[in-house]
Each structure stands twice: as structure tokens, then as C-alpha cells.
């Protein structure tokens, strides 16, 4: 019906002033909740997401115990005030699906064999939502898992790429996600070079697909660098516990 507005201007600048391969500002704090065994708070664009981990802990109900490994559980949930229209607090079908893919994105990094007969519970609570909330949640949750001292094969980090105004771009914000023509959240284990989450929406020529996928992997590595800095500062740094990493490009 109405003409779509341009999302990238003639000079290649996006609505928020970024270039095609630039990330939004990211700020991360680790160890922010007292009760949780591990926690992290991430602000990424307008995303504000709390991640927390409990475990290894006893399994309830008992019949879900696995004799040779930990059970991993995950709940991704959005606060009622996190989106433009108030959201019903009951979990939507979307939240249930995202809980599952986040769990499947993080579990490959966990040495679950080290914790037989236990449960590891991961909570991702979106206090404010922007484009890429699931990859931001994964990024924060991986830090919460590390903060909880769970043995891990690698960190997990993620970022979306997508197609906006016919161009491949990195790290879509809310408007680009909704008005663009493709969104591809990707999570990786950066040191092992393995993909743990991949979802694709939109229409990608084989060429666009390759380019967007590679861009997301490259962007993920930049996110990993921030995760690493946060952990270094938290555990070895001179700066205070709520040390933050702000992206400089």
C-alpha cells in the first residue's frame, strides 16, 4: 500500500548512522544478581537483557534426571513493558521457540558430562527489546554460564546479519528487522569455529546468503572480543566488577 521508506541513504548510512558492517553499541556487566550462580546484563542497541544461571543443581522432577550428564533448561522471556505494545506476561509461542533455539545454541559449549544427574538452568529476561534480542541473550547467557563456573568448551556469541534495501548489513536494529527483507541470527563458538544457532528469514539469493552468513560469523568474532574483555576485567582486571566493554569502531 504505502511506499516503503529508505533504510540506507545515498551515502550508505543506515537510519542510526551506522555503515553496513558496523555493530550497535554494546555494554556488558557480569555478576549483577546476588542469588543466581552466574549472571550478566547486556545493553545492545536498545536491548536491555538480564541473563542468569542456576546450577548444577538437583533435578526436579526426578524422572528427568540423566545418568551421564546434566539436563540443560532455558527460558527466554520478555517483560510486559519490553515492547511497544504491552505484552501479556504468559509465554508466547515465539518465546517458547526462542527458548529452545537458545538452549540448543548454548548446550554445545557446556561440558554436560562433567555434571551427571544435575540440572543447569538458563534464564534470559528481556527488559527492553530491540532487533537481535535472541543473539544478545545468547551472548549474555554465555557470560552468565562462565560466571557460574560451568565448564565450557568455548564461549558462545552471536549477531544477526540481514538484507536491508537490497544490501547485506550487520546487526539489524528493530526497524531494519521489521522493514528489511531478511534477518539471519547466527551464534558461534568462536575458537572452535562452529555454528550453534542459525535461523533464516527473508529471501536470499545464493550469493546474498553466503555474504550474509560470513558477515554474521565475522561480526560474532567481534562480539567475542568484547566478552573476553569483560571476563578479563571481571576476574583479572583492576577496574571494578561492573566493568564494561564499549565498542569502538
Amino acid at each position, binding site marked *: 500500500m504505502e511506499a516503503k521508506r529508505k533504510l540506507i541513504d545515498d551515502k550508505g548510512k543506515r537510519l542510526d548512522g551506522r555503515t553496513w558492517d558496523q555493530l550497535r553499541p554494546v555494554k556488558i556487566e557480569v555478576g549483577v*544478581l546476588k542469588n543466581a550462580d552466574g549472571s550478566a546484563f547486556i545493553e545492545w542497541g536498545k536491548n536491555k537483557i*538480564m541473563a542468569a544461571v542456576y546450577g548444577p543443581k538437583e533435578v526436579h522432577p526426578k524422572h528427568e534426571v540423566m545418568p551421564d550428564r546434566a539436563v540443560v533448561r532455558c527460558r527466554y522471556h520478555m*517483560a510486559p*513493558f519490553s515492547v511497544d505494545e504491552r505484552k501479556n506476561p*504468559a509465554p508466547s509461542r515465539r518465546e517458547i521457540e526462542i527458548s529452545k533455539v537458545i538452549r540448543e545454541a548454548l548446550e554445545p559449549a557446556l561440558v554436560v558430562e562433567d555434571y551427571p544427574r544435575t540440572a543447569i538452568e538458563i534464564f534470559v*529476561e528481556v527488559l*527492553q527489546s530491540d532487533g537481535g534480542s535472541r543473539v544478545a541473550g545468547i551472548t549474555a547467557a554465555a557470560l552468565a554460564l562462565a560466571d557460574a563456573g560451568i565448564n565450557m568448551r568455548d564461549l558462545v556469541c552471536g549477531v544477526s546479519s540481514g538484507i536491508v534495501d537490497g544490501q547485506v548489513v550487520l546487526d539489524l536494529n528493530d526497524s531494519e528487522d521489521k522493514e528489511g527483507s531478511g534477518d539471519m541470527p547466527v551464534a558461534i563458538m568462536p575458537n572452535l569455529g562452529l555454528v550453534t544457532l542459525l535461523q533464516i528469514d527473508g529471501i536470499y539469493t545464493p550469493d546474498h546468503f553466503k555474504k550474509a552468513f560470513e558477515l554474521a560469523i565475522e561480526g560474532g568474532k567481534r562480539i567475542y572480543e568484547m566478552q573476553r574483555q569483560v571476563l578479563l576485567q571481571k576476574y583479572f582486571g583492576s577496574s571494578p566488577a561492573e566493568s564494561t566493554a564499549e565498542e569502538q569502531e
Partner: protein
Amino acid sequence: MSAVKKNYIVETIRKAQLSELLAKGKRLDGRSLEQYRELKIETQLIEKANASARVTLGNTQVIAGVKIATGTPFPDTPDKGLLIVTAEVLPLSSPYAEAGPPDEDAIELARVVDRGIRESEMVDLTELCIVAGKVVVTIFVDVSILNVDGNLFDATSFAVVSALKTAKMPKYVPDGDKAKATGETIPVPVKRVPVSVTMARIGNVLIVDPSIEEEAVMDARITLTTDDDGNICAGQKGNPSTFTPAQVMAAAELSTRKGKEIRKQIVGAAK
């Protein structure tokens, strides 16, 4: 909350230790009987909400978000807007919290906080009427509990009150039987600042702002909300135990006194 799991032996030992201290007017964390833990109120954290407030009370942490829309009034109050308070004890807030629909503790929490605000007439609901009987302003205040460390009642109430005190809403005018937004933004019509003060009785001693350790051994709980004029506007006794009438009267006096102190902090944070 459901987030407190009882262990009888530990509890008995703890209670003995605590009672000894309290008899000397002292508490485990060094506070005096009538002293709150450190209270921090931050507002305007959630840009997508009409208002928000994060309250940190010791290690208890909650966040309230306000969402404003138009809706249909209740048939018995056709000329009043709606104010709806909910609370969710998030599963990440405590090892004992569980995902799922709110249990009786979370429902009591939200309803007691709601009554403190409603009965104090903090928000003038008649100013939220757009077309009587047809369309009114609806204010949702949803509270997410992020970390449970005792006294959720006060932390939640402070967050809701602080958020409402800073909330802005679209100005609506009638358009036939419907509402039309003028494009202007106006403050939510806040008239008063109710303050919830929760006290615990442990043996014969009354303390304010119980920590989670104190809640685990307390006999009875009482929450009293007072308004700017020192009136009591809402109250709720909790726990399967009792108060003497004299203890109730002492709690009433204490709640008014502490309410004044905290009101200043809330008003200060909302500027």
C-alpha cells in the same frame, strides 16, 4: 515469597541467634530495628515504556514498567480510568522461584501494592476518563522481581510509585465515542505519594524492612501504607501468626514515621 524454602533445624538455630541479637536491639546485618537497608531508585531505564523504575533495597532488586493505552471502563465506574498492577517473581530471582502463572504469594504481593496505590488515591482516575462509559485511559504497571532478598512488598511498591510519579502519557480528547490522541504528552495525574512500610514481628520485637533471613524466622508480617498527610490508607497482615492489638498500634505509628523518610527519597528520585 514462594522463594523462601524452609529448613526447620537451620531455622530454629537461626531464630535463637536472631532473637538474642534483637533483644539487644541489634540485627544480623548490623542495622537498628527501625532501619531500612540501602535504598536505590533509578527511573527512566526503559525508553519503550511510559515510565520505569528499578529499586534496589539491599540485595532485593525489582523493576517496574508502565504502559499506557486506551480501554473500556468497568460498568460500575464508567467515569474512571483503569490502573492495573501485576508482579512476576522471575525464576532468575531466586533458587526457589519457579516459572509459571503467579502463585498466591505473587498475587498477594501485586494486590497489596495495588491497594496501597488505589486506596491512597495517588492517581486521580477520574482525570483518566475520556468518554464516560466508553473509553478511558488504562495504566498497566508490571513489576519484574529480579533478585529476592526480603521485603518484596516495599521494594515493589516503591518501584510502582516511583514509576507512576515520572510517567507521561499521550493527551487524549473525545472523538465521538472514541479517543483521539492530540500528539501532546502530559504527566499522569499523580496527587499523592503513598509509602508502603513492611514490618516483621520476631518474638516481641518489631523490625522494619525484613531481610530474607529475617523473613525465614519471623512470626508475623504487617504492611501499612501511609499517605502524605500521615493517614493510613492500606494494610495487610501476613503469615500464619498473630499480633497483639498494642503491636498493631505500634506498627501504625512506626509506618507513619518511616513513611515520611522514604517519601522524600521517592520524591527526590522522581525529579
